[in-house]
């Protein structure tokens, strides 16, 4: 999932200080799961902003809604009525949702309520960790299912480096060395000899370095 973290409430309040009517839009997918922008968080933020403005003697009207997801135009369309009289829209989705609303409603000012962090998963309830760099060319089959691109601080393909100390990365003793994890996994699989194969430099043009990316599936496009 995409993991995001809410901006400080004061920062959001500052961005909407001149608005009288605001629409807060939550998202029902990734940010609901990482507890930062679902229905509940949207209502909490709305309440906090209303209390803040009420005590400043400058009340604000805030409506809330949570879409199934904000990364599909069909759901963004559902805002057509509720967005009409809003001076600003605050999206609690990741950066994708903010852009989808901004693109669909050209006359509306759309504000991000979140800092989109990474693609990752939950280690436990309340702790999320980055697990995928979205590099565009997966090599997990070579590394026992452990990604050296995102989990190795240097993203090296032929590790470990000299900074691997007692299974930890030299940048922080709490970060495991990805290549140690890869070694342990390959040893458990009995495939250690595969680690001797030299991996050539990665083609980074498939990552963001090649410009904005797009995936097209002709077979599912509805004409």
């Amino acid at each position, binding site marked *: 999932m995409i993991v995001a973290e809410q901006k*400080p*409430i*004061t920062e959001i*309040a500052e961005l909407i200080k001149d608005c009288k009517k605001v629409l807060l839009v939550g998202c029902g997918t990734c940010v609901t799961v990482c507890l930062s922008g679902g229905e*509940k968080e949207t*209502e*909490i933020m709305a*309440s*906090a*902003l*209303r*209390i*803040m403005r*009420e*005590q400043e003697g400058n009340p604000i009207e805030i409506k809330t809604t949570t879409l199934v997801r904000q990364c599909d135009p069909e759901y963004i369309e559902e805002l057509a009525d509720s967005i009409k009289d809003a001076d600003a829209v605050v999206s609690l989705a990741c950066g994708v949702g903010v852009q989808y609303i901004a693109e669909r409603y050209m006359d509306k000012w759309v504000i991000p309520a979140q800092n989109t962090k990474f693609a990752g998963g939950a280690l436990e309830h309340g702790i999320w960790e980055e697990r995928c760099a979205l590099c565009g060319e997966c090599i997990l089959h070579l590394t026992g299912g452990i990604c050296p691109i995102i989990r190795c601080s240097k993203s090296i393909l032929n590790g470990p480096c000299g900074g691997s100390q007692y299974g930890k990365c030299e940048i922080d003793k709490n970060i495991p060395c990805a290549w140690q994890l890869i070694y342990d996994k390959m040893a458990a699989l009995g495939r250690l000899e595969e680690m001797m194969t030299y991996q050539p430099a990665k083609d980074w043009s498939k990552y963001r370095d090649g410009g904005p990316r797009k995936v097209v599936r002709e077979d599912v496009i509805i004409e």
Partner: protein
Amino acid sequence: MPEFRPKIVAFCCHYCAYAAADLAGSMRLQYSPDIRIVEMPCSGTIDARVILKAFEEGADGVYVAACLEGDCHFLKGNYRAKKRVKYVKDLLEQIGFESERLQFYNLSAAMGPRFAEIANEMTERIKALGPSPLNKKYKQEKTKPKPKEEGEQQ
């Protein structure tokens, strides 16, 4: 201005504070009539939205009363409630709202006198703080023009 009578919402766990309130009643204990009790199946069901809603609606104070630590009927509900109340207190601080208006207490079903003490303690605390900036009743009275004194010229 009439004497300030705060509106305090007390979210009480069914297994401790709510039963303690019952006991306080059976013991004929006198305690502040300014609290409004909301019974919960467990303090762990408390939700930040409900607390904020109470303040939005003009509550001058809110408290959550949970079981003693280690005594939760559902094992960990009171620890969760404690964390959630702390989260809301931090949020209130950030938005410039007095976080002292929100409190968290632990007590057991056998602590009727403590229940009465908490109710009184909370009422005193809120009286000292004065009406909430969102309490519409007192807000209106504050902004209402003062009646003209006798003999004052028009």
